[in-house]
């Protein structure tokens, strides 16, 4: 099922499919530099209360993304 990165709950894993067209190019570039490539496996480590930015792991690096960015990253939930 295709969804977006922001919809992940703590403990969920996914595979990145791409980015939607609403995401600004420079945001996409920065995400790619950080390793959020299509095909990459990402896990959600922490989903804080009150809509605070969520914490994601890509390989051995941990990033925090807010909904303005994460909701434009298209993913497929993986078991």
């Amino acid at each position, binding site marked *: 099922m295709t969804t977006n990165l922001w919809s992940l709950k703590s403990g969920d894993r996914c595979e990145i499919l791409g980015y939607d067209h609403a995401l600004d190019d420079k945001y996409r570039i920065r995400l790619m530099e950080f*390793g959020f490539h299509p095909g990459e496996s990402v896990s959600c480590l922490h989903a*804080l209360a009150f809509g605070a930015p969520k914490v994601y792991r890509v390989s*051995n690096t941990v990033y925090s993304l807010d909904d303005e960015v994460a909701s434009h990253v298209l993913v497929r939930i993986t078991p």
Partner: protein
Amino acid sequence: MSKVLLMGSPNSGKSLLFNRLTGLHHKVANFPGITVDVSTGRLQHLPDRELIDFPGTYSLQAISADERVAVDYFERSLRDPDVSHVLCVIDATRLEKSLYFTLQVIRECTRHHKPVTVLANMIDVLDSHKLSLDVAQLAVAVQAPVLPVSARSGKGLEAVVTALQGERSLPAPGTTESLEPASDERLRITAHQLAQRFGASGDVLIRNQTRLDGIFLHSFTGGVAFFFIMYLLFQSIFTWAAPLMDAVETVLSTVADWVIPMIGNQTARDFTADALFGGIGAFLVFVPQIFILTFVIGLLEDSGYMARAALICHKPLRLFGLTGKSFIPMLSGVACAIPAIYAARAIDSPRKRLLTYMAIPLMPCSARLPVYTLLIAAFIPATTALGGLVGWQGLAMFAIYFFGMFCGLLVTALVSRTSKDHYNDLPFVLELPPYRLPSLKPLLRTCWNRSKHFVTKAGKIIFAVTVGVWILGYFPNFGADLGTSWLGYLGHVIEPLFAPLGLDWRYGVAILSSFLAREVFVGTLGTIFGIESADEQMAPLVEHIHNSGMTLGSGIALLVFFAIALQCVSTLAILAKESGSRALAVKMFAGYFLFAYAAALLAYQLTTALT
């Protein structure tokens, strides 16, 4: 002298490595117009080489004005014949984060025929987890020598010196396709493949980080930890700095007491006492606060907690156009705007940093406290309600503090919505670095550099303005009467400006002199009313204010005016230096004066109508 560039992405341990290689003997400068530090220092073991610590960046593809300036600087440096070598630091524990940038650097160095060596830092962390990095094969893959090092333990640094000594003969081990013509997209794919091939896999490297994040980002324990840490930060600048600030004042007054009696001429004596020692004291007194706040913020940054704090605060501050990283500068601003403006350096988005600069002067700083105390004592009855639970004066103090913060957030919310500057904004994509024990020596060095920057850069402006205001207040009657001085004359000239607020020339003079520091307002009013030590004994001054015919409306208007107006030369001086824009400081001074005046007028009219 030949130069060596030190490159690396943020959190790769580059600064610690720089300190190791230069032995902490370095100087710090800013890129013109932006708050990005560039440290330079001689290499400890090769004193004929200067090491330049390039600002940490994730890529050579700039996405903001700050990054553009930094990348342009790198490209200019590559054309500089004095640049003999480039060192590029990668985090050996997180290759996927560093390799894309490293490949970009290698490509540019190859194009400009500059030798480049990759330093695989944090090799000690891999060792401690019984992991390894195949540096020989990685060197072949990236077409540059790769040296395993540890900035923390010093391991492998001799090899770096040896590599720099033999720089001209360093082979570029290239058996794969040349990187020189590769596009950024190609490099990104190559970096990804190399990270998968050489990078450490499994959870072992981030196990501790995940465990600690489970505490610091937990809904309950994370909140408790956040409030406790912020409480300590607030204490450090409000309470712990106080004895040191008192010590600075005591030393200055002791020296003044010793020097001044030796001066025969009265005018020279007054100048030395009030302008010279007063002027120096006006900025030296802030040094302990700047030092301590820089130290505490450095601890938070180096330990990795700062990124977590930014994450926790981000959502509510985003509503006002700010970022989570704005919180600590704004909280610091409740003690003093000067260290708070320095603290805003941690904000990577130039746009958000500017908005934070705009909010800081409206935070209710400690210099406003004496003014608030005086005016509240004069106009708010010292009575209580609800059986003594609510004191009206305490409630008024709370209201005026809250009013300042509200205005700060209101300004940033309005500016962020009405003036778009997309180019200088950055997304909230924040790397959460591993938790680490901070290194004390480099941190203390940073505190020293920051304090020195304040004294040498902003101190000159503050001192010059102090002397200027002293001359206006002293002449032409040689300090006999402030009311008939040039400052007093100016007070009469601007009286029509403050008359709509119900204030006469005496309050105009006090407002003018409070430009040096807000608390000077109290002392100046005391001088005008002929009261000794008015700032320590407010009761007689309160009585004189009552007798001067000042109304409740004027008192409220003055409170509102001081809550908003940017009446502080030190803040303006450091704002101009940190932002690299005098125009910004002037615009903010003028803008906040107009805002303060309009709000004060409204408060006066409303209060007068209601009473």
